[in-house]
């Protein structure tokens, strides 16, 4: 286990170096931050001084080397736009994004698994067919369309739920949460549905096909022949085997959810990291963009590692092989 963790840590460092190197190579195509920072009628000298002060007059490899040097010392820099430490900005936004992703994942798993099982047990039932066709819509509609449609229906027409923001939040010092207030929970509904929809349909379809495979395998037939109760066959014997790929996909999808959250957060003005990143892009706020990309890169490594560890817990054969 320690060996696995160590090798993953090394991988994480390599991934981060690769991600930031690619990012730095691309930043110059995003634009010139000086123009965004200087006054509209600033003189060319003013702009040149600013570029020099930021080190932007240096070639890209030098800028990158300086960046790596600073990060190695734990200094992620200061946002060009807000002039506050990037780590503070990300720490402020992290709770919003993680709470949204957590709610979306719960929703996707909580609905996706039972629906998938249902579709697998009675593949030709009317309910299964209905769910299947609705899931096609879910998987093919772009996130922003779903989001706007939900807003129009639930916020503008019915006025049941808020159309934007996080509602009242409780500040715990190190974390801000919307889970503890009524308005915070109400605000969570539409964005988490929007974010979860794609993943929900994915999980549902995955569980369905895995379950159908499992249900037609020999050990299930023997279990049936032995007269075991149906619920035990379906939910313990078959589902447990069907869940392996679901765990992989869910784990990896959490990473994509954080990344996909950019769109959902923009539509719902959800004050998370995605919104921060979008703003950083339009302002060419290089320190914020670099830190965000590093964070997402690290997240994917961590999730991959976590998935591998969970495998060992779910599948006893892997445990024995390692032990």
């Amino acid at each position, binding site marked *: 286990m320690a060996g696995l963790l160590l090798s993953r840590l090394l991988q994480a460092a390599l991934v981060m170096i690769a991600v930031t190197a690619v990012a730095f190579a691309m930043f110059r195509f995003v634009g010139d931050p000086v123009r965004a920072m*200087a006054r509209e009628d600033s003189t060319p000298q003013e702009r040149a001084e600013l570029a020099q002060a930021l080190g932007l007059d240096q070639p890209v490899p030098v800028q990158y080397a300086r960046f790596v040097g600073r990060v190695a010392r734990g200094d992620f820099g*200061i946002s060009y736009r807000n*002039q506050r430490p990037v780590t503070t900005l990300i720490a402020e936004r992290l709770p919003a994004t993680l709470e949204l992703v957590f709610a979306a994942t719960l929703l996707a798993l909580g609905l996706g698994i039972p629906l998938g099982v249902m579709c697998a047990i009675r593949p030709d039932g009317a309910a299964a067919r209905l769910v299947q066709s609705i899931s096609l819509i879910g998987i093919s509609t772009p996130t922003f369309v779903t989001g706007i449609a939900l*807003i129009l229906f639930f916020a503008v027409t019915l*006025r049941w739920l808020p159309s934007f923001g996080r509602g009242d939040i409780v500040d715990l010092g190190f974390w801000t949460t919307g889970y503890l207030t009524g308005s915070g929970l109400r605000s969570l509904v539409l964005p988490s549905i929007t974010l979860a929809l794609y993943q929900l349909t994915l999980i549902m379809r995955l569980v369905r096909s895995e379950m159908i495979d499992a249900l037609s395998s020999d050990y299930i037939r023997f279990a049936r022949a032995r007269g075991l109760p149906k619920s035990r066959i379906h939910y313990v014997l078959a589902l447990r085997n069907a869940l392996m790929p679901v765990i992989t996909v869910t784990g990896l999808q959490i990473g994509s959810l954080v990344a996909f959250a950019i769109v959902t957060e*923009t539509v719902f003005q959800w004050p998370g990291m995605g919104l921060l990143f979008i703003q950083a892009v339009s302002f060419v706020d290089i320190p914020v963009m670099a830190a965000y990309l590093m964070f997402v890169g690290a997240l994917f490594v961590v999730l991959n590692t976590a998935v591998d560890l969970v495998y060992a817990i779910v599948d006893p054969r892997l445990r024995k092989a390692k032990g």
Partner: protein
Amino acid sequence: MKLNRHLPVLAVALTALLPAVAGAQTLRWSSQGDIATMDPYAHTESFTSNVQHHVYDPLVRRNRELKIEPALATSWSIVAPDRWRFVLRRGVVFHDGSPFSADDVVASVERLLDPTARARGNLANVVKAEKVDDFTVDFVLKGPYPLLLNDLSGIFIMSKRWMEANNALKPGNITTGTTTYASTNANGTGPFKLESYRPDQATIMTANDKWWDKPEHNLTRIEFRPIKSDATRVAALLSGEIDMMAPAPLQDLARISAAPGFKVIEEPSLRLIFLGLNFRPELQGQPGVPNPLLKQPVRQALWHAIDLDTLHRRVMRGKSRSVATIVAPPVPGYSAELDKPVGFEPDKAKKMLADAGYPNGFKVKLDCSNDRYINDEQTCVAVAAMWTRIGVQVDLKTESRATYFPKVDRGETDIYMLGWATLPPMDGFSALSALITTRKDGFGGNNPNGYSNPAIDELTRKAAVELDEPKRLAQMVEAFKIARNDVAFLPLHQQPVAWAMKNAVDVPQFADEYVRLWFARMK
């Protein structure tokens, strides 16, 4: 017993609160982006200044007619060409209760002129501020300078004591890694106090009942909630979650005004949109090819070929105003005579091209932003089509502002779109010095493509130090006239500013697009 002693006090406090609670008016408004910071000297964005203006006061401010009037300074005089004396208002207190005096002005100017302050260019002609007595301050200038009041109307005064107490005497600085308390907190003298600032969520302010001025507003609380997505912002207004949005997206105006209980108010803004031209020997898009734009008749022909009326009706949905100059009507330096469009005459344009040696037209690149001005991309598509009709082949490229403006800045364009609002000074000199003066000695900051006319350069240098206002205005108008005859730019239109709100909200609109909620009233 302790409680008893406090009861009368409590009762008095409660009765004092009651009328306020009964008439409590909260205005919730939204815009497309959040402010960059609360620190007045750490940014150069007019929207951020706008929001901060509710918390901070400048020495002089703009009134309902956008004319400059006394604020924290009650009067001023020019004691020497390079020395202005300001008499400060007495009895003003900051939100934390500390009194306002000359020390605060001196400390604020020092902080702004710090070499690391992002906004120091906003007061570029000031050397320092000197305290004369507790309520008199001298501004020492680099030389005679007519626009000091314009500059000061955007410079907010901070409290020296508060800055000292919170270690905020220096502005934030990204290169040295300094961050400051002032970037998320504020202590001004303005009409509203900052209650809380949560980036991208809400900036909450409450009315300052100790404001030095008699409030014209009837608000008790302002909640600013930025919403980036246009569709969501409109939905939030229609669902009653916000009371007002500024600006409102042009494509949704009809829908909002049709909804019961909502209204849209519109006004031409100060921002004029025009096309800039390449004045160098060769075309940027086709190196080696001599630049046809160097011939005045060719530029004139391109101007005649633009159907401004169609742009106004089709692209801008009738909300813009077609123009022929580069400063807007309320701005000093504007002249109605220069603002008469040249007329849409495609046949004449064709003939002019033929006479200039281009009977079959020529090929040229047109660069435009697609996210900076209202319908910028569509405007350029329309102009390109219009030019095609006189035989000019247009290679149109539109891109995001982040890459577009650096490219324009480097002069890598032949014809490019630019908007200019003369902000923050709100004076024609801004357009004169930045756009049409030769790029030299700090002038021509936005004249990247080599337009140069010695007569204009001379007028600019005169107007820069002319303290006699009628003379200065005449110099500017003269320069704009030369530029128009030269066809230095192809002016298109004046952008509209549109706000949408509940019928219960009454707020004046301003051409500089500032939201001034100290004039707002709610029913």
